[in-house]
């Protein structure tokens, strides 16, 4: 009969998981390339630390000012800020990818209480929780400095607020986990996030135009927020500062009630998971549809001018683009931002009406911005291939055909994006003079085609796998980013000098002529580089396959 291990404590299990994560980090540093990756993480950690610490000072100053200046009701605003960050940050972060599955712990002999406590402990290890705890601590310190008598009340309220937040965050997280188990939902969530970010840019124009109308509505809605946890916490502290026991009790009991209700709901949710429900990470398989694959016998081929291999790569790239919500929705950004820029610079509410920007300047500037944004992914163009990269090396083709297909697709996307942006600029601001217009278009050909060879080489030399339809946990290849930055700097610099040469010499068509020559040279260089890149691909195939098949 085999031995059976005795029961162990929750702390031992939490310590075991923490040890596991540390070993994973340490082992990941064994490879040179991973060390750079970890260095990036450390730099990210330092930046996050600066962010948290900076806001610690802000929360300290805010809380101190609220109590020292006799305006304790302002404390509610600080609690609202922390509440919003704590709850919303993980919500959006979760949209970008499947988060750590702490339910895998169910493999081990845990009782239900241990499972619940470990679940909460994971909640406290989130970035948003760590930051919020630091900010609450700095507020508590400020209260102690400003009005020591309020410290006991503040400590109690902070503990309740903390418990309530971590419970609510885990509750929403565990619910979202179920909803986001489907890839499509995750991608939809990400799309909403992108749209929300774009919408933020519209706040200023909307407030400028409709601010007066919106204020009464905001005040009316604001009253209902008084019964939300951050307002209750703020009221409790305000009451304690004014020695109003009733208000303190009311606020604290309110928080306690919230914490209690959330705890009961979370307990029920975790209990369901503990019983083994929803263990599948993906949605239940859809019912098998009875119909067979449509026997489509297409008579026309829109890509018949291309070789079968190039046409296959173009089709595959198009399908990947439309199915990769991250890439697809980022394509909305450039024309949307062009619209926002042009809205800022035109119309009767434009803030720059006194010093309008001429299309002569704005048009080349916007186009340079589009090239900058849209060429970035080309420097790691195999990022989404995954194990499929092997198909290219197993197939009887030269790698130039893969690059031709990929580059053709990229150029098509650039053409569409620039076309849309051009229409918007023409609508809002008008077109620039013919010399600037022609010079800009030829400059685009020079800058884009000129970069393609470099981008293709970078993709072979510094590949990094990226998750499809995800943003969280996605780190671009550091060297590819550096390459892109350097190349854009060089091409941008050359283009700027050539563009301004027209002004300096007084010959307005000179830049267009110079760019035309440069564009021809860039196109020639691109085709000449394809064979060399095929040889590089053969030499680098092992690096590429290893990086993308992980």
């Amino acid at each position, binding site marked *: 009969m085999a031995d059976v291990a005795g029961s162990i404590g929750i702390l031992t299990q939490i310590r075991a998981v923490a040890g596991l994560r540390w070993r994973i980090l340490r082992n990941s540093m064994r490879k040179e390339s991973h060390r750079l990756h970890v260095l990036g993480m450390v730099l990210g950690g330092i930046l996050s630390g600066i962010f948290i610490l900076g806001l610690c000072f802000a929360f300290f100053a805010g809380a101190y000012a609220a109590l020292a200046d006799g305006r304790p009701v302002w404390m509610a605003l600080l609690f609202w800020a922390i509440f919003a960050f704590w709850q919303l940050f993980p919500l959006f972060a979760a949209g970008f990818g499947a988060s750590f599955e702490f339910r895998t712990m169910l493999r081990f002999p845990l009782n239900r209480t241990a499972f619940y406590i470990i679940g909460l402990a994971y909640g406290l290890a989130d970035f948003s929780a760590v930051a919020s705890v630091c900010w609450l601590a700095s507020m508590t310190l400020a209260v102690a400095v400003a009005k020591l008598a309020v410290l006991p009340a503040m400590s109690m309220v902070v503990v309740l607020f903390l418990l309530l937040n971590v419970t609510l965050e885990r509750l929403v997280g565990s619910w979202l986990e179920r909803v986001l188990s489907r890839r499509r939902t995750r991608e939809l969530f990400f799309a909403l996030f992108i749209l929300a970010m774009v919408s933020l840019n519209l706040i200023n124009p909307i407030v400028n135009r409709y601010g007066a109308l919106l204020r009464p509505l905001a005040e009316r809605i604001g009253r209902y927020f008084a019964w939300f946890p951050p307002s209750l916490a703020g009221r409790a502290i305000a009451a304690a500062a004014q020695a109003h026991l009733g208000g303190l009790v009311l606020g604290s009991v309110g928080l306690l009630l919230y914490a209690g209700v959330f705890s009961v709901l979370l307990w029920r949710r975790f209990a369901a998971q503990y019983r083994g429900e929803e263990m599948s990470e993906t949605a239940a398989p859809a019912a098998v549809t009875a119909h067979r694959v449509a026997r489509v016998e297409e008579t026309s081929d829109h890509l018949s001018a291309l070789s079968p291999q190039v046409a296959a790569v173009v089709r595959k790239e198009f399908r990947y683009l439309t199915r990769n919500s991250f890439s697809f929705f980022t394509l909305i950004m450039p024309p949307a931002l062009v619209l926002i820029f042009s809205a800022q610079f035109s119309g009767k509410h434009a803030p720059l009406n006194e010093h309008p920007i001429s299309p002569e300047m704005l048009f080349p500037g916007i186009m340079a911005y589009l090239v900058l944004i849209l060429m970035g992914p080309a420097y790691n163009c195999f990022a989404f291939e995954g194990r499929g990269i092997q198909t290219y090396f197993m197939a*009887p083709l030269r790698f130039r055909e893969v690059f031709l297909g990929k580059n053709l697709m990229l150029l098509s996307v650039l053409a569409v994006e620039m076309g849309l942006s051009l229409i918007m600029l023409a609508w809002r601001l008008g077109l620039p003079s013919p010399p600037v217009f022609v010079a800009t278009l030829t400059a685009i050909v020079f800058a884009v085609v000129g970069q393609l060879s470099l981008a293709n080489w970078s993709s072979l030399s510094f590949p990094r796998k990226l998750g499809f339809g995800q943003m969280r946990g996605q780190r671009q290849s550091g060297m590819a980013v550096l390459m892109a930055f350097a190349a854009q700097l060089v091409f941008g610099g050359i283009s700027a000098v050539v563009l301004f040469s027209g002004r300096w010499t007084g010959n307005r068509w000179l830049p267009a002529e110079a760019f035309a020559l440069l564009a021809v040279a860039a196109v020639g260089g691109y085709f000449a580089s394809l064979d060399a890149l095929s040889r590089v691909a053969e030499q680098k195939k092992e690096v590429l396959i290893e990086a993308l098949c992980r």
Partner: protein
Amino acid sequence: MSEIAIHTQKLSRRFGNLVAVDSIDLQVVAGQFFGFLGPNGAGKSTTIKMLTGLLSPTSGSMQLLGLDFAAHPVEAKRQIGVVPEGMGLLERLTGSEYLQFVGRMYGLDRATTQRRANELLDFMQLADRPKTLIADYSHGMQKKLALAAAVIHGPRILFLDEPFEGVDALAAGALKALLGRMTERGTTIFLTSHVLEIVERLCSHVAIIHKGRLVAQGSLEELRAGISGEAGSKSTLEEIFLSIVGQDGTERPRLEELSWLM
């Protein structure tokens, strides 16, 4: 004289100090169903990767159907189909889209590619989920699709790395029948599998690789005779394998070390 489908001479591959494949000389006759066996980490997948162009040899040479792989990689690849380790699928395409992609990559015209893709999807019982992405396929379905992709262009040599892993018994039976028919028509099949019963049932010839070196090669009868020292021996492939690979005594796990479990 029979045509040689696969011929390697002193084929080697090093990863730093590790010699993964050490000077192997393989010879596979066209039309053979050839099993390539070895314990974990013996060098099987590395050998297949070299033979299919996914990995460059450190030294040595290889010819596929008389074509030197290093000199004529494109022509050599045109003759082969591969189910690689990890399957190498483009997971964000549907099964039909992937087969059409692969068909076109091998230079088939669109109509032929579509017809063959449809027939293969039907045969592999994958036709009833036309809009499902490969990422959402089960492991077994992915394996069947990888097999379909490997044969869509009618290869003369087929390399299969664990082709039946995760495939249900019904589909596996049909696949085995298909592979058998392909060898009858002259296709050479180079198969690796840890399931020795499958190899014994399907393969006429076997090679065993151990610690990067080829330690046995021949027909099953030849290997049996080599082990027992007499013709007509009834040894199973498992016995042959264990006797060759486990003869240095280091391979067999010692059960007495796990006495606390028994």
